[in-house]
């Protein structure tokens, strides 16, 4: 049995078309407030290019291919790791006000009381 994937001609076009459609619909549902994390998140997703880089590097024969392949993996890994790090950091900051607001208010009251005293 052979699990080698072979994508040719129209099959490729169908994959591209469906993926583009999915991307358009998925992203269309993201509110404007999340546009920056969305951008860095999708930036992270195309970091999958590192997999292509590893494939190219493992199959490298000449020194030239090894050098270029090395940079492909280096840059791809940077794309993926950096994209994840900043997206995760940004998303962790988005908070609802309900519990937080009470907290903030009581803090302020404390400050005022402390100053009164």
């Amino acid at each position, binding site marked *: 049995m052979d699990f080698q994937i072979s*994508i040719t001609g129209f099959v490729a076009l169908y994959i591209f078309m469906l993926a583009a459609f999915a991307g358009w619909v998925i992203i269309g549902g993201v509110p404007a407030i999340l546009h920056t994390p969305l951008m860095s998140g999708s930036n992270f997703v195309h970091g999958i290019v590192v997999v292509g880089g590893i494939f190219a590097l493992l199959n490298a024969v000449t020194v030239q291919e090894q050098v270029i392949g090395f940079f492909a*993996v280096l840059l791809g890994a940077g794309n993926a790791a950096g994209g994840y790090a900043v997206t995760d950091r940004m998303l962790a900051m988005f908070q609802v006000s309900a519990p937080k607001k009470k907290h903030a208010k009581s803090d302020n009251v404390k400050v005022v009381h402390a100053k009164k005293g």
Partner: protein
Amino acid sequence: MLAMISQLTIGLVDLAAAFLFMYGLLRMASPVTAPSGIFVAGLGMVGAVLASFLYAFSVSAAAAPHLPLNIALALIALVIGGGAAWWSGRKVALTAMPQMVALYNGMGGGAAGAIAAVQLFGNKAPGATELVVTLIGALIGAVSLSGSLIAWAKLDGVIKNPLRVRGQQAINGLVMLATLAVGGYMVFAAHGNAESAIAMPELIYLFFACALVFGVLMTLPIGGADMPVVISIYNAFTGLAVGLEGFVLQNPALMIAGMVVGAAGLLLTLLMAKAMNRSVSNVIFTNFGATTKHKQGAIRGELKPMAPGDAGIAMRYASSVIIVPGYGLAVAQGQQKLYEFVKLLQAGGVGVKFAVHPVAGRMPGQMDVLLAEAGVPYDLIFQLEDINEEFSSTDIALVIGANDVVNPAARTDKSSPIFGMPILNADKAKKVFVVKRGEGKGYAGIVNELFYGDNCNMVYGDAQAVLIKMIEAVRGLHFQAAA
């Protein structure tokens, strides 16, 4: 047997990764589920990267002797590239997000270009279709690499001003034509019957050189405030390049992930251009601002300066305040002080909301992230269309470091370069305070009528310094009340 099992494993893991990427992005539709979304996508990435080492079991006979070295190289590259980017991504200030995203995006484009280069030098794209797709992916990836790096340099302040020369568009057009000509000649040389006059490797170098130069030339003339469009475009470009190289490598996970991002980037690009009421080509190919020879009608009224403390106290006694943040707030790093001030107002019973314009800042949604960093709950942050009606029933609009996005000329003055751009109607509030560093003009180089309005006062100074004075003034009120 091993080769077969490894192929099956890679196939299944990549399939799962493609699903997890889309599911992760889907979870980004709400701030509540978004953090789990990026985690889910991250799992897919880790799995795909680990599985990709199984390619070692199915390398070609020619590459087999080099395998141990190649695996070592791949591991070193992963650790160095991933480690450095992770470290920088964790360390960098949140106001520097736009340039970091540009940088990581450029790296992705570079990786796609490098993969294409390996395929081309190794002559691994035998069919004409594969060669053409490889070349298109290489072109887009290379343009994205050099263009993103220029965008990074601009956002980081390494390049201060847009660089514009006469006949720039003609030069750009020529470089683009040259790139296409070289690429076309390569296809012709490889698959035509004629003998090529130039050796293939030289052609490949020339092709990449032209593409890289084009990316630089295309990005140099674009100004800072147009960066939201530029970053979105390069994000789409990298996605597209990754998708195309995925086809060449026969890897559907790359094809799907790349194309999803390509479509996402395109959608964001169009949204940003719409928020500026300009077409995408207008942003890329016209030198906005500097070349505008706009004769402005005489402006009535005068600029009325106000002390920060007085403005702060006025807001403390208002019942409703809408705050319009702009790039100036990010530059001054004033977001923490702003929320501290807002909390004082809220403690005094003032209703405070934030109004964010889609293109405020240097990338889509930058203001939202800036406010979130300071701890502002996201249900206090409103987008343009959701809050614009409320200005007319609001006591005070506080504009901090924003200019063109509140210029009423966009509504009224047909000859204005920003006419038709949706703006925040801050001028309709009963009172407007504008915090601004000086009397300079905005990015578009036009005078803002809002500042001269009867209901408007100017508070000059660095946003952070001004906010500190406002906080002191309002705290001072508490002291007086206590005494």
